[in-house]
Protein backbone atom coordinates (compact mmCIF):
# COMPACT_ATOMS: atom_id res chain seq x y z
CA UNK A 1 0.00 0.00 0.00
CA UNK A 2 1.26 3.49 -0.85
CA UNK A 3 0.09 6.83 0.49
CA UNK A 4 0.92 10.35 -0.66
CA UNK A 5 0.41 13.75 0.93
CA UNK A 6 1.34 17.10 -0.64
CA UNK A 7 1.79 20.06 1.62
CA UNK A 8 3.01 23.68 1.55
CA UNK A 9 6.09 24.66 3.52
CA UNK A 10 4.36 26.32 6.45
CA UNK A 11 5.15 25.15 9.97
CA UNK A 12 1.43 25.29 10.75
CA UNK A 13 1.11 22.26 8.42
CA UNK A 14 3.26 20.02 10.62
CA UNK A 15 0.21 18.85 12.54
CA UNK A 16 -1.33 17.65 9.25
CA UNK A 17 1.87 15.73 8.47
CA UNK A 18 1.74 14.01 11.85
CA UNK A 19 -1.90 13.05 11.32
CA UNK A 20 -1.17 11.74 7.81
CA UNK A 21 1.67 9.52 9.06
CA UNK A 22 -0.38 8.22 11.97
CA UNK A 23 -3.44 7.53 9.79
CA UNK A 24 -1.36 5.76 7.14
CA UNK A 25 0.12 3.40 9.72
CA UNK A 26 -2.92 2.89 11.89
CA UNK A 27 -3.80 -0.58 10.60
CA UNK A 28 -0.22 -1.84 10.57
CA UNK A 29 -0.02 -3.00 14.21
CA UNK A 30 2.87 -0.67 14.91
CA UNK A 31 3.41 -0.44 18.70
CA UNK A 32 2.44 3.00 20.07
CA UNK A 33 5.98 3.90 21.17
CA UNK A 34 7.33 3.08 17.69
CA UNK A 35 4.43 4.90 16.05
CA UNK A 36 5.11 8.05 18.08
CA UNK A 37 8.82 7.88 17.24
CA UNK A 38 8.13 7.54 13.50
CA UNK A 39 5.68 10.46 13.56
CA UNK A 40 8.32 12.51 15.38
CA UNK A 41 11.05 11.66 12.86
CA UNK A 42 8.86 12.73 9.91
CA UNK A 43 7.90 15.95 11.70
CA UNK A 44 11.60 16.67 12.30
CA UNK A 45 12.64 16.02 8.70
CA UNK A 46 9.79 18.05 7.23
CA UNK A 47 10.26 21.00 9.60
CA UNK A 48 14.00 20.97 8.81
CA UNK A 49 13.29 21.12 5.09
CA UNK A 50 10.60 23.77 5.49
CA UNK A 51 12.89 26.01 7.52
CA UNK A 52 16.31 25.47 5.93
CA UNK A 53 15.55 24.63 2.29
CA UNK A 54 12.28 26.57 1.75
CA UNK A 55 12.40 29.38 4.35
CA UNK A 56 8.81 28.51 5.35
CA UNK A 57 7.40 29.67 2.00
CA UNK A 58 3.88 28.17 1.91
CA UNK A 59 3.93 28.22 -1.92
CA UNK A 60 6.78 25.70 -1.93
CA UNK A 61 5.52 22.14 -1.78
CA UNK A 62 6.74 18.95 -0.15
CA UNK A 63 5.47 15.52 -1.19
CA UNK A 64 5.40 12.89 1.48
CA UNK A 65 5.20 9.26 0.31
CA UNK A 66 4.72 6.26 2.56
CA UNK A 67 5.27 2.73 1.29
CA UNK A 68 3.73 0.14 3.54
CA UNK A 69 5.51 -3.17 3.17
CA UNK A 70 4.11 -6.65 3.18
CA UNK A 71 6.25 -7.19 6.19
CA UNK A 72 8.59 -5.13 8.23
CA UNK A 73 10.39 -2.49 6.17
CA UNK A 74 8.55 0.84 6.09
CA UNK A 75 9.78 3.46 3.61
CA UNK A 76 9.07 7.17 3.98
CA UNK A 77 10.08 9.60 1.24
CA UNK A 78 10.07 13.38 1.30
CA UNK A 79 10.29 14.82 -2.21
CA UNK A 80 11.04 18.47 -2.98
CA UNK A 81 12.81 20.90 -5.27
CA UNK A 82 14.81 22.78 -2.66
CA UNK A 83 18.50 22.68 -1.84
CA UNK A 84 19.63 19.36 -0.39
CA UNK A 85 20.41 19.31 3.30
CA UNK A 86 22.03 15.94 3.88
CA UNK A 87 21.81 15.07 7.55
CA UNK A 88 24.36 12.29 7.07
CA UNK A 89 26.95 14.99 6.40
CA UNK A 90 25.93 17.04 9.42
CA UNK A 91 27.90 16.44 12.59
CA UNK A 92 25.55 17.24 15.40
CA UNK A 93 27.11 19.00 18.38
CA UNK A 94 27.19 17.07 21.63
CA UNK A 95 24.55 17.76 24.26
CA UNK A 96 26.93 19.51 26.68
CA UNK A 97 27.84 22.02 23.95
CA UNK A 98 24.19 22.67 23.16
CA UNK A 99 23.46 23.34 26.83
CA UNK A 100 26.50 25.56 27.20
CA UNK A 101 25.69 27.59 24.09
CA UNK A 102 21.98 27.83 25.04
CA UNK A 103 21.15 26.66 21.53
CA UNK A 104 17.64 25.53 20.72
CA UNK A 105 18.50 23.71 17.49
CA UNK A 106 20.53 20.65 16.59
CA UNK A 107 18.44 18.06 18.40
CA UNK A 108 16.11 17.09 15.54
CA UNK A 109 18.77 15.44 13.41
CA UNK A 110 19.96 13.47 16.40
CA UNK A 111 16.39 12.24 16.93
CA UNK A 112 15.93 11.20 13.29
CA UNK A 113 19.19 9.26 13.25
CA UNK A 114 18.28 7.53 16.52
CA UNK A 115 14.78 6.58 15.35
CA UNK A 116 15.28 5.56 11.72
CA UNK A 117 17.30 2.58 10.49
CA UNK A 118 18.53 4.37 7.39
CA UNK A 119 18.50 7.86 5.86
CA UNK A 120 19.54 8.27 2.23
CA UNK A 121 19.25 10.90 -0.50
CA UNK A 122 18.58 10.33 -4.18
CA UNK A 123 17.38 12.15 -7.30
CA UNK A 124 14.20 11.14 -9.14
CA UNK A 125 12.65 13.08 -12.04
CA UNK A 126 14.96 16.05 -11.26
CA UNK A 127 13.63 16.18 -7.70
CA UNK A 128 15.35 15.52 -4.38
CA UNK A 129 14.19 12.47 -2.52
CA UNK A 130 15.04 11.95 1.13
CA UNK A 131 14.28 8.33 1.93
CA UNK A 132 13.91 7.17 5.52
CA UNK A 133 13.69 3.48 6.29
CA UNK A 134 12.31 1.93 9.45
CA UNK A 135 12.26 -1.77 10.12
CA UNK A 136 9.60 -3.01 12.50
CA UNK A 137 9.72 -6.67 13.43
Amino acid at each position, binding site marked *: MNYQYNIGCSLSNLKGIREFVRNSLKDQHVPEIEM*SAIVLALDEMCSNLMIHAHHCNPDHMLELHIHIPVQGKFIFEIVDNGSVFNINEFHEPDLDNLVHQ*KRKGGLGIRLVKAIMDNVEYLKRDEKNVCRLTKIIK
Partner: protein
Amino acid sequence: MVHIKRLQEGGADIISVIGEIDASSSIELDLAIAKSVGEGFKQILVDCSALEYISSAGLGVFMSYIEELKDKNIPMVLFGMKEKVANTFSILGLAELLHITTTKPEAKKLADELSV
Protein backbone atom coordinates in the same frame (compact mmCIF):
# COMPACT_ATOMS: atom_id res chain seq x y z
CA MET B 1 -1.46 23.73 18.88
CA VAL B 2 -0.55 24.29 22.49
CA HIS B 3 -2.23 26.01 25.43
CA ILE B 4 -0.12 27.14 28.33
CA LYS B 5 -1.50 28.01 31.73
CA ARG B 6 0.45 29.36 34.66
CA LEU B 7 -0.56 29.29 38.28
CA GLN B 8 1.34 29.88 41.46
CA GLU B 9 1.45 27.48 44.35
CA GLY B 10 3.64 27.58 47.46
CA GLY B 11 6.16 29.98 45.91
CA ALA B 12 6.53 27.91 42.75
CA ASP B 13 5.32 28.88 39.30
CA ILE B 14 3.50 25.93 37.78
CA ILE B 15 3.44 25.97 33.99
CA SER B 16 0.87 23.56 32.52
CA VAL B 17 1.55 22.60 28.93
CA ILE B 18 -1.57 21.33 27.17
CA GLY B 19 -1.54 19.86 23.67
CA GLU B 20 1.32 19.59 21.19
CA ILE B 21 4.62 21.43 20.95
CA ASP B 22 6.30 21.50 17.55
CA ALA B 23 8.36 23.99 15.55
CA SER B 24 5.29 26.22 15.09
CA SER B 25 4.34 26.40 18.76
CA SER B 26 7.57 26.06 20.76
CA ILE B 27 7.75 29.86 21.05
CA GLU B 28 4.76 29.71 23.44
CA LEU B 29 6.69 27.50 25.83
CA ASP B 30 9.74 29.72 25.51
CA LEU B 31 7.70 32.83 26.38
CA ALA B 32 6.07 31.15 29.38
CA ILE B 33 9.41 30.11 30.89
CA ALA B 34 10.91 33.53 30.11
CA LYS B 35 7.99 35.22 31.91
CA SER B 36 8.35 32.93 34.88
CA VAL B 37 12.05 33.74 35.17
CA GLY B 38 11.43 37.45 34.52
CA GLU B 39 8.82 37.64 37.26
CA GLY B 40 11.37 36.30 39.72
CA PHE B 41 9.94 32.91 40.66
CA LYS B 42 12.39 30.78 42.61
CA GLN B 43 11.03 27.44 41.42
CA ILE B 44 9.46 26.40 38.12
CA LEU B 45 7.39 23.23 37.90
CA VAL B 46 6.25 22.18 34.44
CA ASP B 47 3.07 20.08 34.40
CA CYS B 48 3.38 17.79 31.37
CA SER B 49 0.36 15.59 32.16
CA ALA B 50 -1.65 17.04 29.25
CA LEU B 51 1.30 17.27 26.89
CA GLU B 52 0.49 14.95 23.99
CA TYR B 53 3.51 15.55 21.78
CA ILE B 54 6.85 17.33 21.78
CA SER B 55 9.38 17.66 18.96
CA SER B 56 12.98 18.81 19.11
CA ALA B 57 11.87 22.45 18.97
CA GLY B 58 10.23 22.05 22.39
CA LEU B 59 13.08 19.97 23.78
CA GLY B 60 15.45 22.71 22.62
CA VAL B 61 13.54 25.29 24.66
CA PHE B 62 14.02 23.28 27.86
CA MET B 63 17.68 22.70 27.01
CA SER B 64 18.30 26.39 26.33
CA TYR B 65 17.28 27.33 29.89
CA ILE B 66 19.45 24.81 31.72
CA GLU B 67 22.47 27.12 32.11
CA GLU B 68 20.53 30.28 32.89
CA LEU B 69 18.42 28.58 35.55
CA LYS B 70 21.50 26.98 37.07
CA ASP B 71 23.21 30.39 37.23
CA LYS B 72 20.14 31.95 38.86
CA ASN B 73 19.63 29.00 41.21
CA ILE B 74 16.08 28.40 39.96
CA PRO B 75 15.24 24.70 39.88
CA MET B 76 12.96 23.65 37.01
CA VAL B 77 11.28 20.26 37.39
CA LEU B 78 9.06 18.59 34.78
CA PHE B 79 6.42 16.13 35.96
CA GLY B 80 3.53 13.94 34.84
CA MET B 81 4.83 13.03 31.38
CA LYS B 82 3.02 10.41 29.33
CA GLU B 83 5.18 7.49 28.23
CA LYS B 84 5.24 8.51 24.55
CA VAL B 85 6.47 12.00 25.50
CA ALA B 86 8.98 10.67 28.04
CA ASN B 87 10.34 8.41 25.30
CA THR B 88 11.28 11.45 23.19
CA PHE B 89 13.32 12.84 26.09
CA SER B 90 15.02 9.52 26.69
CA ILE B 91 15.93 8.93 23.01
CA LEU B 92 18.21 11.97 23.33
CA GLY B 93 19.37 11.29 26.87
CA LEU B 94 17.76 14.51 28.08
CA ALA B 95 16.30 12.72 31.08
CA GLU B 96 19.83 12.94 32.50
CA LEU B 97 20.15 16.69 31.92
CA LEU B 98 16.72 17.83 33.09
CA HIS B 99 14.90 17.21 36.36
CA ILE B 100 11.90 14.96 35.70
CA THR B 101 9.53 13.34 38.21
CA THR B 102 6.29 11.39 38.00
CA THR B 103 4.00 13.46 40.25
CA LYS B 104 3.60 17.08 41.32
CA PRO B 105 4.41 16.42 45.02
CA GLU B 106 7.62 14.68 43.91
CA ALA B 107 8.42 17.64 41.65
CA LYS B 108 7.89 20.11 44.51
CA LYS B 109 10.01 17.99 46.87
CA LEU B 110 12.83 17.79 44.34
CA ALA B 111 12.63 21.54 43.68
CA ASP B 112 12.82 22.18 47.45
CA GLU B 113 15.89 19.93 47.72
CA LEU B 114 17.54 21.64 44.75
CA SER B 115 16.78 25.10 46.17
CA VAL B 116 18.91 24.50 49.27
